[in-house]
């Protein structure tokens, strides 16, 4: 009997089986793809984060530490890879005589490193000029002392006679913050600025010079182990990796019984990334869950369309003596076919989509299998819920007679009576307003605390807006259709000719069915548009992040000794250089705090670098730059500086800048004109922006260290050409925005959502096709009958199809308009609620016009395919249909 039942299912219910299985497949595909993307993104974030940590651990010895004991403890740490010893000595100052003048600095630090340090930690020291072995002087120190390789520097030891050394090379210390961080300070304490005056000696020379100081003044010297762990052995999830590294460090400190403290740079980086990983999970829920809900709704709608047949089948079986158990067994076969078919198809689609979403690897393959297994279970559950549960409920509840009666439910559905659409929208607006007002953070990852949390209630606003908006669209259609006959008839005249009035009348009277189709299409469009707008805005902000880091499409970074500005004219002549603007990068003391200072031409800087309004507080970018142009002595400062000095616009502010004449810092008067939050190439710390002409006049140095270049073509190709132009300038670096975007710190914005966007576009188009196809499938029998009657009355082919095309147009147009408006609204809610993802936050949404056009065209084609399919299925034999009348 089961075999006969199966044969009957495939023969007579193939369409419904295929539709339900397709719904399951779509749901499985989306969930599995999103899960794989999410897991892969976590792995990517962790890998990128740990790859860019210059030194994993800095193990600082306390005064009573036994070096051998600490070394043994470090070496025996699980995951240990290598360590280098670094000696630190405080000095009273450094001095040098160059060009007939003597320059003397304030207190500084002298480090002792081994020759293998550069190889072990290559990103800590970047050679600018000279040799990378021997006595190395930091870039700022070289500028302060005006020394280069071959010059002599006097080290003023503490409590001992000075010692003179010869400079072998000038270096940059990109991670000076790490090198000189205070280890063991309470979390939340203000970060310590690195010293301005730094010398690096080979360890042999350091011991020779500073062992006596260590004996006399042991408080002025320190020792650290710089440790590298095996990153491959860390857990792939950022939170798990963070916890792992924290435990290893705590364990080490316990084993050395307090004789050393661990500066856990790896944990600090992972702490930031774990929040980003959680944001990725949040994005998964925000962007993927509606699609999964849509897939589930479609599957349930497809199976619900066969309810009439289900009732008839069960009634006939019961009349013929089948037990409830037998009925359930027969219906289970359908659930199994739908479930297994949907899962297999979904798995195939997922594996195909995976190659678009992520870069495959052994790890990704393992993750894929796990997610497929998990979503397969979900798919089976969906098939059971959609197919078997209604059958089981029906079989257990009703008598034969009741099963044979078809009761039509009349009156408004419950959601309409309760005004659920209005309630959902109102609640969404309230939650959104609250989010916007309170600076709400979705993800909380307190520093130093292993636990992080997500405020899941942030999902409420977009979810309620999505559902409420669609229900409202349905209400507008169902209530408005009777009143909108004339305009609707006019709209359909092009398709239906003089049949437009009866077609409109027919549509209006079938408004519940049409409304269901509009709702499904609106859901699909809202899903696609919201994710596309969010992704486009997100990707644009990722570019903004890179622009802020790099400064422009291509940036040439030199030093005061070798400024990039020397080649400005050559650079401007190159092809694809749309604009090139020079910029000063100096240092200025604000009180005792040394800050980066950027000297610009405010009238022209925007030609080469994007100036976002978000960079400036209290005014737009053009207003702030105009103000700077109007006041030559104007200076823009950070909010922190403004508060520290209680500055008001127009207040006098003295800064100390280095003069070219004597290389000493002298006071230069400035006028405070505003607050700057972000600036191209500027660090996240406090910094200053002023007029380069004023700085040049006051300091006697017109040197422009940096050139920002806007490209009209491929930035990476232009960067390659620029490298040749500046090759004669020692230590000059050329970076392009593409490389920076890939290498930017492992924040969420480094996660590429392009593959995800493509997946969701395909999914949305399939959903639109499914939604319109479902509308036609639901009325298939009625449509066959009507076609036969109309044919008998003398209708031509075009007239027969007018009903179908009109229905398709109303469903697609109504759903697309409602869905697009909803989608933009949801994107706005997402951007506001997830502002922790963006740095800086976007000024406005960016609409992906190409994507929207593709979605529209694809949806039109999908709808046309559904209509043509339904037309084919509806054109059965007229004679056969007439016999059934």
């Amino acid at each position: 009997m089961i075999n006969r039942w199966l044969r009957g299912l495939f023969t007579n219910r193939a369409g419904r089986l295929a539709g339900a299985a397709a719904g399951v497949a779509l749901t499985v595909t989306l969930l599995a793809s999103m899960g794989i993307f999410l897991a892969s993104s976590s792995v990517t974030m962790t890998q990128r984060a740990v790859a860019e940590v210059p030194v994993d651990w800095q193990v600082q010895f306390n005064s009573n530490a036994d070096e051998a004991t600490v070394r043994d403890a470090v070496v025996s740490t699980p995951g240990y890879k290598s360590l280098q010893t670094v000696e630190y000595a405080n000095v009273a100052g450094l001095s040098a005589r160059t060009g007939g003048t003597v320059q003397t600095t304030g207190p500084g630090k002298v480090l002792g490193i081994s020759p293998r340090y550069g190889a072990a930690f290559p990103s800590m020291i970047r050679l600018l000029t000279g040799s990378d072995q021997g006595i190395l002087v930091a870039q700022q120190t070289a500028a302060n002392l005006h020394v280069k390789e071959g010059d002599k520097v006097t080290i003023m030891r503490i409590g001992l006679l000075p010692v003179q050394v010869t400079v072998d090379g000038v270096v940059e210390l990109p991670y000076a913050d790490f090198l000189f961080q205070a280890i063991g300070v309470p979390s939340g304490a203000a970060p310590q600025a690195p010293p301005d005056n730094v010398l690096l000696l080979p360890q042999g020379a350091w011991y020779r010079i500073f062992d006596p100081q260590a004996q006399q003044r042991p408080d002025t010297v320190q020792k650290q182990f710089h440790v590298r762990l095996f990153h491959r052995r860390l857990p792939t999830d950022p939170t798990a990796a963070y916890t792992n590294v924290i435990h290893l460090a705590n364990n080490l400190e316990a084993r050395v019984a307090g004789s050393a403290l661990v500066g856990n740079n790896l944990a600090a980086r992972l702490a930031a990334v774990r929040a980003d990983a959680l944001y990725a999970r949040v994005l998964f829920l925000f962007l993927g869950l509606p699609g999964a809900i849509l897939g589930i709704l479609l599957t349930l709608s497809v199976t619900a369309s066969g309810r009439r047949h289900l009732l008839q089948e069960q009634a006939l079986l019961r009349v013929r003596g089948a037990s409830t158990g037998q009925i359930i067994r027969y219906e289970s076969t359908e659930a199994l076919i739908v479930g297994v078919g949907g899962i297999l198809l979904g798995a195939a689609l997922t594996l195909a989509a995976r190659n678009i979403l992520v870069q495959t690897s052994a790890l990704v393959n393992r993750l894929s299998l796990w997610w497929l297994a998990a979503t397969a279970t979900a798919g089976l559950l969906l098939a059971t819920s959609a197919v078997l549960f209604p059958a089981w409920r029906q079989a257990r509840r009703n008598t034969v007679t009741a099963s044979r009666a078809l009761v039509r439910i009349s009156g408004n559905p419950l959601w309409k009576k309760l005004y659920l659409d209005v309630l959902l929208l109102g609640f969404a607006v309230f939650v959104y307003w609250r989010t916007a007002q309170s600076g709400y953070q979705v993800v909380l990852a307190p520093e130093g605390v292993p636990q992080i949390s997500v405020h899941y209630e942030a999902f409420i606003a977009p979810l309620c807006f999505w559902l409420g908006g669609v229900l409202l669209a349905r209400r507008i259609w169902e209530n408005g259709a009777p009143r909108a006959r004339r305009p609707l008839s006019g709209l359909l005249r092009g398709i239906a000719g003089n049949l437009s009035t009866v077609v409109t009348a027919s549509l209006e009277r079938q408004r519940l069915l049409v409304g269901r189709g509009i709702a499904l299409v609106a859901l699909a469009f809202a899903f696609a548009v919201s994710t596309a707008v969010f992704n486009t805005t997100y990707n644009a902000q990722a570019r903004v992040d890179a622009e802020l880091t790099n400064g422009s499409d291509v940036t040439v970074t030199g030093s005061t000794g070798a400024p990039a500005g020397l080649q400005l004219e050559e650079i401007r002549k190159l092809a694809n250089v749309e604009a090139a603007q020079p910029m000063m990068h100096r240092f200025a003391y604000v009180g005792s705090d040394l800050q980066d200072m950027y000297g610009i031409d405010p009238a022209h800087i925007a030609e080469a670098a994007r100036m976002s309004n978000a960079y400036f507080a209290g005014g737009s970018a053009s207003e702030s730059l105009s103000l700077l142009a109007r006041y030559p002595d104007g200076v823009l400062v950070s909010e922190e500086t403004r508060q520290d000095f209680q500055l008001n616009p127009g207040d006098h502010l003295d800064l100390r800048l280095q003069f070219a004449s004597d290389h000493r810092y002298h006071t230069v008067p400035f006028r405070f004109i505003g607050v700057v939050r972000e600036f191209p190439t500027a660090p996240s710390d406090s910094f200053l922006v002023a007029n380069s002409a004023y700085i040049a006049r006051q300091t006697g140095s017109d040197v422009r260290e940096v050139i920002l270049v806007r490209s009209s073509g491929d930035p990476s190709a232009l960067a390659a050409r620029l490298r040749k132009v500046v090759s004669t300038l020692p230590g000059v670096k050329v970076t392009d925005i593409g490389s920076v975007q890939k290498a930017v710190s492992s924040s969420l914005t480094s996660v590429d959502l392009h593959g995800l966007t493509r997946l969701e576009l395909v999914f949305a188009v399939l959903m639109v096709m499914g939604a319109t196809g479902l509308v036609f499938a639901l009325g298939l029998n009625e449509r066959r009958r009507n076609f036969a009657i109309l044919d008998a009355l003398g209708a031509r082919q075009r007239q027969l199809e007018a009903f179908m095309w009109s229905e398709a147009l109303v469903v697609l147009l109504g759903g697309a308009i409602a869905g697009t408006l909803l989608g933009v609204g949801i994107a706005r809610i997402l951007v506001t609620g997830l502002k922790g993802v963006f740095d800086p936050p976007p000024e406005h949404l960016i609409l992906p016009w190409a994507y929207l056009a593709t979605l529209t065209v694809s949806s039109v084609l999908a709808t046309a395919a559904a209509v043509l399919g339904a037309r084919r299925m509806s054109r059965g034999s007229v004679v056969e249909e007439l016999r059934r009348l």
Partner: protein
Amino acid sequence: MINISNLCVRMADVRRTYLQGRTSIHALVAATCTVAPRERIAVVGPSGSGKSTLLHLMGGIDTPTAGLIAWPALGERETLRPFKVAFVFQTMSLISSLTALENAALPLLLAGTEVSEAEQTAFEALAAIGLEAAADKLPEELSGGQAQRVAVARALASHPRLILADEPTGQLDHPTAQQLFDVLLDCLEETDTALVVATHDAAVARRMNTVWRVHHGRLEVQER
């Protein structure tokens, strides 16, 4: 003497065979008959005898497997409907989402008549059968008899030359059936429209001028 060019329908040795799986069903075998204007013909026979097939062939809905069928006074097969030939089916032949007026106007609209003119003509047809008050009702709001009368009005609205009614009273009780048939015959009284009715109802058959008997696909023409 019958003038062939005036005939509504002329069938000569017409056969219609269907394939049902591997089995050939001979729905109509060697049917030869004519329908002249103003004729009133009843086609009787048991269920499955071929009555509906005969009407479908006459109306151009179906095509014969063999033989000749022509409409000398009406034109080619493609131009028969909606203006020249109209059908009345047994039951449930109204479009459920359209009102009685809209259903009645359908043939006219399909033929390209302007909406206002089509609705006026349809209203007059409904009035002729006494259903003007039900013009705005949907089929589900009408009784079985009323629905069939709307179907009749739909057939009459286009002023056809030939009406083919397939069991028009099959689902109705006897008084209602009689009432329906009275209305139909009254409306056709002053016209040249021919009427062919397939029916089980002996009372209906008695009211027609000619009776054709169909048995196992074979047509016997019997005059009164």
